[in-house]
Structure formats: C-alpha cells, structure tokens
C-alpha cells in the first residue's frame, strides 16, 4: 500500500509569549524575555495532541518532518513512521527554516502539511508554497487571526485523519493574516490580509441527524454570492474588499479577483482592479457605490487600520447604509458570540459603524450581528 505523506512542521517558539502575557513571539528579544519569565513552548505539546489522533492509522501514512524541535521530537513521541529531512541549528530556528521545510515537503509530494504555530508561521508557509499544497494549522500561538487553523489540536488531528482516510479531499481557501505585532502590543489591532492557504475541512458528521442541515462552505459561498449578485443594480459601483467570501462574488460573475486588494465592479463587469484609496475617491466623485466586505481571518475582523484602500474617507463617502456585509453562517458561529470587529482609525467612522449589522449568510438568510471595536 502506498503510504500517504503527511508533513509536520513545529515552530518551537510559537506561543511562547502568550502565557506570560506577552503578545506574539516574533522577534528574538521577545523570545528571550519570555523564556526568562519561565514560558514553556506550547507548540510541542499541542502538536503531540494532534498527531496522537493519527495513531490508529499509523500504517497508512508516514510523517515527513524536520529535525528535533521542528517536528521529529513530536513524531518520535507519538511513535509513528517518520522520515526526517533537512537540518537545523537547534535552539536557533528561524522563519527560513520553516520556509525551507515547507518547500522540501512540497517537492516530496506531501499530501497535507500540518504545522504547529501561529500567524507568523502561517505567513512563512504561505510565502514558501502558497496554495500548492493543503495546509492545516494546529493552534499554538496566542491569539490566532488567520483562518487556517483547526479549532483545537484534537480537531486538527481529526481533520488530518479523515484527510488520510479518503481520496476525496475537501479543501477551502482560508485567509492568512498579517498582524502588526508591535501595534498589537500597544493595544491597537492592525491587521490585513496577507494571502490564502488551502485548508482541508471535515464533511459534517452524521450523528444526531433529525433535521436538515446547511450547505458546506463551497455551496454556502455560492448561495451568498448569488444573493448579492442578483440584487446588484446598474450604474452603481460595487467596491469588493479582499477575502475568501468576497471572492465568491467575482466568481459568480466569472470575473477575476485581486488576491489581496480591492476591486470595483460596475454593471457586472470589472471597472477597476487592485485600486488604492485615491483611485476609489476619484471613482466616488462620479458614481454612487456600495461596499461589500466580509470578516476575514478567524477573529471576525471586518474593517481595520490595515485596510489601506477602504479608508474612513471612502466609508464616509459611500455611507454606512451602503455597506453590505457577507459571511457564511459557520464563520459567524465560530465567533462564539464575540462581536465582529471594526477599527478604522477614525473614531467618528467607528461610531457610525458600531451596533448591529445585517450579515448576508445565504440566499434568503441573514443574521443581525453585533459590531464593535
């Protein structure tokens, strides 16, 4: 039997800052401080929890990983068939190591890459391999903003197990976020979309089936896009922000979508792509517009300071009532009651936006959800 290859990358310093009250762990200075405060690396333990789930299937796959603290330690602890590649300087691993590991695994035809780390690790992997291979994060950092992670380590293991057991692989695009760690430490959340990774997801379990269920993500996105598109009026601009959900709008119209930027649609065609703020203002001088946005990442982030294009000025021009918020119901629910977040940098605009916003979640379905800063 051909064994499937599962890649494993552990970022040994991820999550170090969290428990001792430091945000993020990028940067050697932070790391040193954290270790001095007695922080233990979370990523190893979390990875073990996830990988252990795969023990019943150990004959069906082999782990491809990097030496010692970057993965081999975890694989050995779980007693699984492991091939160790690459070389590192233990105790001094860097983002480069992560990227090299990812690239090597891609070359070796790894089917799924599991990584234990945080947003930083997600960005590194994205930089290395983009969407060329399915990736799934085992949460081990502080707060996770990227949407590429499983809910918890066990869930990561479950998904990996299912992934290994079937040939029918379901993946969805998930946002990788770039959080400005420095401003975060100053209490300011400034994030923006960095890229997308292809993340596997479990088709829903069958237990407890008494009633009908809602669509899986691809169908759900089409439902939302269909609704928005069928309501589009002529001669009005539709400013489409970046994100996996908003991309579905362009797909529904069979248009390209700028990966990380803002596009403008008019009369169901692309009027301008990857626009900046001044280009938008120019367009707004001529036409009325609506903005289509969705929460990106895993924290319900709707509009932040990182959003250079849809600036407070643009929002004021368009008008708060002309903002269309879209999201799958799953994403809303993953917030567990936490509000959607806005932080435009302009308190006046933030106040205009705060309160409750209608979120389009399907063709005839929406939700009234809380928006806060």
């Amino acid at each position: 039997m051909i064994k499937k290859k599962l890649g494993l990358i552990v970022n040994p310093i991820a999550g170090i800052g969290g428990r001792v009250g430091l945000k993020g762990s990028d940067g050697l200075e932070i790391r040193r401080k954290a270790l001095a405060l007695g922080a233990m690396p979370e990523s190893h333990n979390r990875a073990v929890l996830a990988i252990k789930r795969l023990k019943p299937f150990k004959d069906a796959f082999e782990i491809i990983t990097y030496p010692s603290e970057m993965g081999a330690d975890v694989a050995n602890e779980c007693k699984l068939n492991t091939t160790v590649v690459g070389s590192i300087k233990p105790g001094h691993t860097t983002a480069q190591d992560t990227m090299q590991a990812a690239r090597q695994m891609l070359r070796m035809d790894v089917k799924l890459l599991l990584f234990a780390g945080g947003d930083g690790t997600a960005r590194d992997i994205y930089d290395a391999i983009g969407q060329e291979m399915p990736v799934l994060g085992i949460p081990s950092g502080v707060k996770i903003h990227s949407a590429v992670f499983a809910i918890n380590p066990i869930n990561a293991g479950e998904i990996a197990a299912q992934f290994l057991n079937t040939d029918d692989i379901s993946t969805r695009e998930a946002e990788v976020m770039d959080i400005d760690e420095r401003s975060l430490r100053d209490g300011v959340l400034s994030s923006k979309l960095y890229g997308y990774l292809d993340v596997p997801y479990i088709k829903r379990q069958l237990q407890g089936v008494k009633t009908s269920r809602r669509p899986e993500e691809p169908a759900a996105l089409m439902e939302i896009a269909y609704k928005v598109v069928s309501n589009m009026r002529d001669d009005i601009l539709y400013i489409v922000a970046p994100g996996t959900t908003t991309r579905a709008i362009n797909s529904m119209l069979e248009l390209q979508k700028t990966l990380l930027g803002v596009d403008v649609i008019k009369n169901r065609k692309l009027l301008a792509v990857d626009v900046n703020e001044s280009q938008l203002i120019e367009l707004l001088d001529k036409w009325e517009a609506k903005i289509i946005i969705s929460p990106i990442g895993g924290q319900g982030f709707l509009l932040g300071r990182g959003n250079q294009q849809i600036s407070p000025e643009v929002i004021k021009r368009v008008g708060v009532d002309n903002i269309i918020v879209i999201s799958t119901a799953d994403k809303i629910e993953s917030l567990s009651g936490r509000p959607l977040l806005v932080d435009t940098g302009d308190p006046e605009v933030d106040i205009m936006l705060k309160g409750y916003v209608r979120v389009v979640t399907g063709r005839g379905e929406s939700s009234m959800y809380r928006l806060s800063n």
Partner: protein
Amino acid sequence: MNPDITKQRYANGRPKLRRFHQAKWDESIIFELSNPGQRGILMPKTEVEVHEKVGDVAAALPEKIRRVEPPALPEISQPQVLRHYMRLSQENLGTDLNIDVGQGTCTMKYSPKINDSLSRSSKMTALHPLQDKDTVQGILELMYKFEQLLKGISGMDRFSLQPSAGSAAIYANVSIMRAYQRARGEAEQRDEIITTIFSHPSNAACARTAGFKIITLYPDEDGYPDLDALKAAVSERTAGLMITNPEDTGIFNPKIEEYVKVVHSAGGLCSYDQANANGVLGITRAKEAGFDLCHFNLHKTFSTPHGCGGPGSGACGVTSELQKFLPVPVVEFDGENYYFDYDRPDSIGKIGPFYGNSSVILRAFAWVMSLGAQGLREVAEIAVLNNNYLMNKMLQIRGVSAPYARGKRRIEQVRYSWEELAEETGVSSEQIGLRAVDFGVHYWTSHHPFIVPEPCTLEPSESYTRQELDEYAAIMEHVAGEAYTDPELVKTAPHNSTIHTIDHAPLDDPERWAVTWRAYRRKMGQPATSE
C-alpha cells in the same frame, strides 16, 4: 460468608452499570430470505360467477399499461416474515426499553399503553374519513373536545389538528402569517421572518420553503437571543417572529414578552414553537406572553409514541383574529351535533389529506384527560425537577459543563458541553455517545449547527425514577472517566451493540451509495433477480 444480595446491583447507594449487550441477530436483508413459491398471505379470489360475468380483466387491459414482469418482491411464508421483523424489533431501542433521557428536545416520555390500545379499537381504525358525519360523531366529539383542552392549556382561541407533525404545524403557522399579511395588503412588503439559532431548525426551513427570507439571531453572552439584535432586525419588512421558549439549551428567556412587543410594534406576528412545552405546562403559556400563534408536538409533550420517526401530530393554535386563516375544515358543534365546517373562504386551504392523524390525536386526548390541570402541572414540575436533579449530577462529572446562564436553573432539558473533556482527552462528544450505547441508552448531541462545542442534550421528562436518572448519570460518569483513562476504548465504541463500525464513505459517493437493495446489488455487480 453470605454476601448481602441486596447490594449486588448497588454499591454505596449508587447503581452499578449493567452488563448490557444489545440483541444481535445478524439478520439477513429480507430479500435474502426469499424462497420462490412461498406465500405470506392469501387474497380472496374472484367468485366464479363474477369471473364469468367480467372475464379476464388483466387481459382486457391495454398492453402498454399492463405490468410485464411481476414485481421482484421477496416470497416468504408468514411465520418467517414475522420472525424477521420481530428480530429487527429486538435490535431497536425504544423508549419502552431504555432510560431515554438521552434524546434531548424529543421529550421521550412514557406513551401509556391504555392510549395505544384505545387507538387500536376498530371504532377508531375502521373509520373512513369521508363517512357521513352522523356516523362519526364519536371521533368528531373527541377532536372538538381535544381542541378545547388545547385552548385551556395554551390560552389560544382556536386550533387546527390537521398538521401531521411539528414541522408541518410550523409551516401552517407560516402560511397563516402570510395570509394575514396578504389580507392587510402587506404580503409583498413583508417578506422577512426572524428566528433564533437555538430554535428548532424547522422554523427557518419551513419559513424558507414558504418563500420568506430568514434573519437569524444569535445568543448574547447569557444564552438568550440578542434583544438588541432583534430591535435592529425588525422593520416594515418583518412578517413575523418564530421562536422557541425555553430554547433547546433549556434556558427560559424571561424577556420573551419584550420580544413579542418589539415585533408587534413593527407590524409582525409572533409564533411560539412549543416543542419544549413539557417543563412549563400550567406554568406559563403562549397567551400571557402575547403570542399570536403557537404549535404543540403531540408526540413530544403529549406522550404519543414516536414511531421511529412518525406518525406524530402538530396542533397549531391561533388567536381569534387569525382563526379565519386556519386550515380547513375545523370541527364545530351546533349544540346537538358535531360537524366539519368547510365554509371558510379565508382559510389557507388544506395542508394534509384529511383532518390530521386521528389515532395520534386520540392518544393525546386520553393522556390529557387522565391527568387534568393538576396532573399536567405535576408533569411540568417533575420534568423540571428531574432535569435539574440530573444536571446537578452531570456537572459533578469531570470534563462537562452547561454553557450559558451558569449557575442558573434550567427548565426541562440541558445542553451540555464536553469541550473540556475533548481538549484534555481527545475524545469527542459523539464518541461518548457511542460508548453510552454499550450501556443500553441513547445519547444525542444537538441540532446542527453545533453552536455549543462538543454538545450533549439531555431531557429527562417526568417518566423516569430517581434510580433511573442515577443510572444515566452513572453511565455518563463512567464513560467520561474512561475517556481519561482508556480513551481508545471510548473512541472505538460501541462494543456491545448490534453491528460493528460502519464505513460511512460509500454513503456520500454517488458511485457507491445504495438506497435500495436492488441498487446495492447492481452496484456490487450482482444479477438483477435473486436465485
């Protein structure tokens, strides 16, 4: 030394777990029991004189409409058919058999046998629905009187017993809402219905089917639907609100009246899904909170048996303002006789072939009549006591919690979360449920979507003894303990069940799925007809 035989099944006042094994007959699929030529029952044959007069009716049919090959049904003698189904019945865990507190939201209470036997009287079963009304005064009276009972219980003014189940009743209520808005000339404008994520999924699904757009409200930190969100959601497009209270979490929303007021002031109607009525009978009802419509599931609160998934019955009730829209016919009484009133021009029409599931209605009627007002109140109070008693035991188990309204009481059910246990052991709620099967009980997680992580919904109802509740809690505790000490045992459960682990993959694969035996044979490359 003679052991104390009264302590064999109990230790320290707690029940020991059963060494249960489900019946396991390894029974073939019925087609595999077929023996060509065998007969299960014989049909009356056409009399000779009749045959002489009419000739060969089969031959007289045009060829294109005559069946060519006889249907490939199995040919089995009567005792063998009986045996087969008896065996299958043994492989099924009805409420009659188990401590059925594990099917939360379904209200699995005792279905009194006297009511079953009354409903099987030929005076009930051999009635044709279109018989002259003079010949069915008994059942008409029963239906009329049952409606009066429901009015007393709910405070609503008029009921229809025609919907065949809860979701059908929800659909009827949505239809009535639409008719109401149409009569006011506002049906075009009012195309939105608001509901909550913890209401039964049918509230959204039925309203969608009826053509409405749905706005879903999520809970606030306390687990109540967000009132501010409701205020933001209502508008001149609002047709109505559909809500369950208490919701499936078991938490009663004390501000329900405010919700109703908000929707009313926007011009919408409010419909109360009373699937969770069991804990509040005689305590609170639709009327006091200001609802315009409500519905009851007779197979839940009203004790009629679930039948593996029906037949049930859904009674929908309305205020007098809305009664003209009710499905037709309704049962009326002119002082002497009962009759069906079809003269209702504003009715939404028919939602089912006749008048509802009469034998189910009979059982519900009998149940209410056997208890009366005080009895129903006792039902609610004990259901709630049982639930809080069980919750108290459950919350002592490591790894489980009851999210929302922490520290507060619940009404008739609780939605627990095994999130802590799952994080610590890697065992999921579903796996706990499957291991519970090894001790002879059911277990249910939640409706989808799982808002509460690793959910488990338990609803004792009033039908179980304290010992039975203790036993269920002991099973939960035991299985939870195994998750920590021997997780593999739990993850590979069930071990004492009828069948082994199922391979789910074929069920999602169009190349391999098979809804009938003939499809299965075809896809497995077997010949079409059995040898």
